[in-house]
């Protein structure tokens, strides 16, 4: 029998089918006593490795696009992706990593110039719930997290995650004690909030109140250095994006926000100070500053000007200098608007 199998090279379609059959078996037979089960797992790991090699090539050969397309088509023809995601915790580490890489790669594979992964995910959008909850399980977080990040390359999928309840949990995920998991969650969070401009703009304006309340209190005022540093950088990236200009104007008109930014400007960390400046400048440059913002800026004028006098990044940066000069001019020229 063995010889027979060997003589016939398996096609990508065969490999996907066999993988699916084994996943179904694993899924339906949770009883782990059987030695038969061990064999199935070994076979499954081997198949996953082969699938990965078709998609990525190996150190000797580049991937063949025809084979990739066949594999992708067969994969999404039935529920293979769901099976992979559901069974992932049962696999060993190497098989998990292979599966993660396969899922990641499939998101970019085109079949007749269509991203069929996207169609599949739209029809099975609840899979995103499993992936996003992965951050709650330290053993699965890096695998599910990597898959999730690839899936939100599709705009519709990203919109689903943004508007889901998971979005609130990210504020905690990115502060998990395990650095590798927290950093992975932060990378996903950033991707969600920067990748698809129009979706992000819509999300931010619809969810402005709770989102920025959380953002300020949990992230910008976090006791955790890394959280503050990443949050202030991301805030700058979001607000300075042209597509978010409405949100930016709103953000830069709030005295509470200004207070938080001014505190960040006083941090001992240069990196945080510099990033905070890039947001602070929006408050100063705003041509329609509300009276309370002007009031705060005027009250702190001398302190601010003193701060900016010897404020510069480690590397020469002309743009920064120009921004700074403008901010200094703005603040110096402010008039208290009493009456």
């Amino acid at each position: 029998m063995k010889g027979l199998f060997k003589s016939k090279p398996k096609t990508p379609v065969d490999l996907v089918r066999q993988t699916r059959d084994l996943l179904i078996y694993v899924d339906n037979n949770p009883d782990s006593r059987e030695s038969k089960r061990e064999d199935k797992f070994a076979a499954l790991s081997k198949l996953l490795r082969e699938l990965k090699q078709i998609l990525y090539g190996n150190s000797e050969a580049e991937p063949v696009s025809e084979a990739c397309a066949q594999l992708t088509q067969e994969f999404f023809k039935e529920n293979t992706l769901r099976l992979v995601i559901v069974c992932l915790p049962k696999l060993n580490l190497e098989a998990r990593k292979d599966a993660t890489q396969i899922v990641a790669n499939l998101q970019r594979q085109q079949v007749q110039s269509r991203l069929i992964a996207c169609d599949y995910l739209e029809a099975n959008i609840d899979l995103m719930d499993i992936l996003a909850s992965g951050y709650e399980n330290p053993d699965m977080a890096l695998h599910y997290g990597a898959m999730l990040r690839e899936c939100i390359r599709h705009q519709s999928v990203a919109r689903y995650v943004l508007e889901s309840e998971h979005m609130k949990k990210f504020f905690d995920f990115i502060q998990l004690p395990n650095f590798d998991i927290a950093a992975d969650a932060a990378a996903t969070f950033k991707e969600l909030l920067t990748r698809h401009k129009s979706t992000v703009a819509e999300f931010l304006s619809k969810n402005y109140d709770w989102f920025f309340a959380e953002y300020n209190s949990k992230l910008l005022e976090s006791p955790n250095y890394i959280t503050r540093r990443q949050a202030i950088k991301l805030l700058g990236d979001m607000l300075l994006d042209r597509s978010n200009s409405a949100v930016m104007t709103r953000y830069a008109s709030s005295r509470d926000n200004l207070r938080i930014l001014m505190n960040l400007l006083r941090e001992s960390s240069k990196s945080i100070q510099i990033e905070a400046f890039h947001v602070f400048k929006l408050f100063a440059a705003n041509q329609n500053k509300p009276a309370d913002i002007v009031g705060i800026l005027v009250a702190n004028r001398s302190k601010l000007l003193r701060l900016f006098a010897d404020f510069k990044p480690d590397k020469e940066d002309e743009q920064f200098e120009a921004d700074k000069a403008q901010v200094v001019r703005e603040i110096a020229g402010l008039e208290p608007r009493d009456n």
Partner: protein
Amino acid sequence: MDLPSLNPQIHSYASKMAHNDEQDRETKRFHYPLDPNSYQILQEIGRGCSAIVYKALCTTTSTVVAIKSIDLDRSTTDDFENIRREAKTMSLLSHPNVLKAHCSFTVASRLWVVMPFMSAGSLQSIITSSFPNGISENCISIILKETLMGLRYLHDQGHLHRDIKAGNILMDSNGSIKLADFGVSAFVYESSSRCLMLKEITGTPYWMAPEVIHSHNGYSYKADIWSFGITALELAHGRPPLSHLPFSESLAMKITKGIRFSHYQKEEEKVLKNTKLSKYFKDMVGLCLNQDPLKRPTAEKLLKHYFFKNSKGCDFLVKNLLQGLPSVERRFKESKFERVGSMSKEQMEDDNDEEVEDFLLGNNVKKIRRISGWNFNVEACELDPVFPVGDTSYRSKSLDEGQHMNANPQKDVFAKQITFGGESVISETRGELDGNKESLPNVVTNDGGGGEEEVDIVGGSSGVDREVVVGSLMSLKRSLDDQKEKVVYMLSMVGAEETICSGGEHDSSEDSLMQMIEKLRLELDNEKRKRSSLEMELEFLKLHITSNSDV
């Protein structure tokens, strides 16, 4: 008669058990505490620009670990992304020959990466301390085979290591070997291109493959194989290969523009012939150092090479390498004098070396500095990169090397080399101004004090130790004298005026100090000027304000 045949069985049984243990552990996170108070810092065992490595005791599990403490505030956003990737890589890898992270967490603005403590340290530090002329082929075969298994695993996983060298091969007291430091490792599956090629330049120049240095076409797994070959030579000779060329020849090679790569290789071959190494070794290294990456074997194939066929077990390493070897801690301490000296000297030359990443575990910094070219007062003198091109002697060396290896050195190639140097310089020296101002010889102790405070060190020597400073200054003086001697010798050999300018730099310690003082003075002036211009601006603004309020 029974015993010898029994032993290996017992051994393999035991290792099987261990492996099973490891397998159980691999899918579950092994529970090391994520809290700095659960670790008792025992000793500093390594140091780089933005990281310190400690030996520490994990009090909840009662195990000795190594903790790499990385200063995140000194890393840019891009570095940050690399650090994230490294943390992820290290927690997802699982192979007996690859160093894994137990866990990582942040402590104020530092990231702590908790790793197994490899008590014998890096092969580089073992060589430096006890085998300056290289180690025996039997040992090399074992070390390289273990390393290669780790490398094969990495490549299988889609990782490039990108910085293979003896300094990144670690050894434990039982002789086990692990490949470490993924500070620069890239994950090819994450890059968007499908062709498994990377275009960034990283690594340590001596070990770099030509296609990495040129970086026209990107590079792939085969670049690691090249570095592996260089590492083989490093283990055999005690230093990487170029250092074996008599310096006059290497100098000539570097001065002549347009020398072809084959020349370099010819020299390489000559070196191989001159030594007493076996033909299998030479053949294996030859395969790795094929100029054409496509013709180099994969890690998988290389493992089948005859050179590895009769490799002995790791016990052999314990008997032959580790006996009488000073501990990692001692080696680090002993290197401290020289280290302090070398750091300050580097700053004088305004030529911090490229080794941000090289603080790894058990790897003592001294050797890095030495290889980086300044410390050529040690036996590696021939290799010396001192060169007519300005004051960045080390850089100019790698630049030149790049030129020589290039078949037809055109202008654009040269430009590329320069960016390469520039890029590395940027990544390593944050704020040269600050660095220069603060980094007089006692920078190490100062820094240490800061680091230790946060780490709540036990029995560490914090603050400035007068003895250490005096000692390091003495060693600095000694090595400067040494350098002077060598430069004079070189001058007499070459007789070319162009070297005089670079020679003058090392003339005497007084001169160097004078130069530094001069440099600092210039900087001070610069700062003063900036300050006054800012004051002017302020005045102007004040005027502006008053004129505005007048209106």
